[in-house]
């Protein structure tokens, strides 16, 4: 079902674009160019992009940029954004301080 795993596909070289310096992930200050380069460096899934660049890993947890990053990666790969598996959903759903996250059952 997932065409994105077909690693034999040739997506061509990275071609610089005038808007490469535009910030896409505001929290982690990741630019469009960095995301595009990452795709050409072999990061074809959203999970890989996140681990490589930290896009979507900041304060808003990708609330703003995940859709934008997905669009950029999909375009670079020449696939529809719908074909890209979104990042893993896991707890904590919202950014939380470790002291809070480790503080179990305070009021219950």
């Amino acid at each position, binding site marked *: 079902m997932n065409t994105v795993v077909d690693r034999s596909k040739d997506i061509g070289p990275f071609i610089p674009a005038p808007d490469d310096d535009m910030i896409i992930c505001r929290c982690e200050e990741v630019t469009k160019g960095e995301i595009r380069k990452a795709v050409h460096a072999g990061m074809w899934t959203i999970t890989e992009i996140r681990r490589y660049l930290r896009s979507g890993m900041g304060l808003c947890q990708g609330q703003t940029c995940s859709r934008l990053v997905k669009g950029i990666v999909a375009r670079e790969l020449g696939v529809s954004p*719908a074909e890209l598996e979104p990042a893993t959903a896991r707890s904590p759903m919202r950014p939380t301080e470790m002291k809070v996250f480790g503080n179990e059952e*305070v009021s*219950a």
Partner: protein
Amino acid sequence: MERYDLIVVGAGPSGLSASIEAAKRGMKVIVFDENEKPGGQLFKQIHKFFGSKEHHAKIRGFKIGEELLKEADELGVEVVLNATVMGLYIDKEVTVRIGDGINHYKGDTIIVATGAAENMVTFPGWTLPGVIGAGAAQTMMNLHGIKPGNRVLMLGTGNVGLVVSFQLIQAGCEVVALVDAAPRVGGYGVHAAKVARTGVPFYLSHTIKEAEGDEFITGVTIHEVDSTFTPIPGTEKHFDVDTICMAVGLSPMSQLLKMAGCEMEDNPKRGGQVPIIDDYGRTSVPGIIAAGDVSGIEEASSAMIEGKMAGVCAAEYLGYCTEKELEETLKVLENDLESLRQGMFAPKNRGKQIEKTEEGIDISTNLLKKGYVTDEEIERFPGVTHKVGVHPVMECTQNIPCNPCQDACKKGCISIGENITNLPFVKNDSECINCGMCVASCSGQAIFLVDEDAGEGKATVTLPYEFLPLPAVGTRGFGLSREGKIVCDAEVLSVKSVPAFDHTNLLTISVPKEYAMRARFFKVG
């Protein structure tokens, strides 16, 4: 760890509706919401809702929110605020951040009604302060009483873009333009028309080229795009603004469902990542149900019905109601939902280019391109008729499921006909008594009372007016056309504000006779 029959995540229209249905059937229900106020988006909605009586039509959104909260409270639903659900684990264990700690709850059923988040588009300068979501602007204005900016450009002409533009004007901002890359206005024509007649220009097939400013937004340049959304050189237009609002769609916040192991799909028609659900919101995990925008972007009225469905499904799942009761309730709710999903803006018509109304009348092309119906076009719609004396003129030109006007007229002047989506028309055999109830009842502010010949070469026009300060009787100014251009002198003859109008004030202006069918807004001179 505390156990509940039902844990609802999100205290918006669907979550609250779900909790009410479940509690009614005897379930022990708790609702968590990460915000400090309940109601989700409802408490930001200061406009009157569309629909029929059953759908809370002509009631303002925040009032509906208050009603739901009250009902939930009376039924013993626990609503916990400032409570952020952190995770949804196997066997329906939920972790919630409350204060500085994490609490564990076990739900025997879970309803996820987490709603959606705003989309953004990028352009050079989009990260500058002053670029905000339209929903954020609404939160600032309507929840916190803060004016988002002074000069605003709105990107997006869906209902969110149109409604928020109107509210920005109400808050005292100047909306310099409404811009959309699409060739047609996406939201209701009546919402567009009420913004256009205040003088806001619409730029369809346009998008933002860049925003300027060092520390914050000081200006924006837009340009026209062709049918493939490629910018056309030389079409740039510049505006001095301090705020750019983006109303470019919503994405479901469905991560909790994904985490819980529900089967998901990427469905562009539903707005992105959504759970795969049956007709009533039940996901692939038994006992986990999705309701509202999280399972597909729609609006508050349908979210409330989906919430009710989810609530009953949860009740049946745990044996709090019989399968028969479930089936019967769902049948009623399905009909309700179906009646909302009618007309030109129904989900099934998304993306379709509709040329004619259900009555076979050509849709106003100007409305879709410029946000207003032209003087020539308006005459072909059934709500627009000419009569001696005061009579209603209903500038309702698109089939949407809505009918408060019909019930508002105690004299029976107005009829919608068989289908709730029909365009209203004036019945010839009844007499208008100039009470103004129809004008105030129209959620689209599309009804006017007109006396085309009030004597001495004058005509009178009564229009809905939701701006402060209200002009005093005798104030002189100008009559604005549907396009928002000054077309004639006008004088305020009366200002009516009675409780039954629910804050829609009725302004009666006197204009030269020949402008009876053209003047549709008043501007203080």
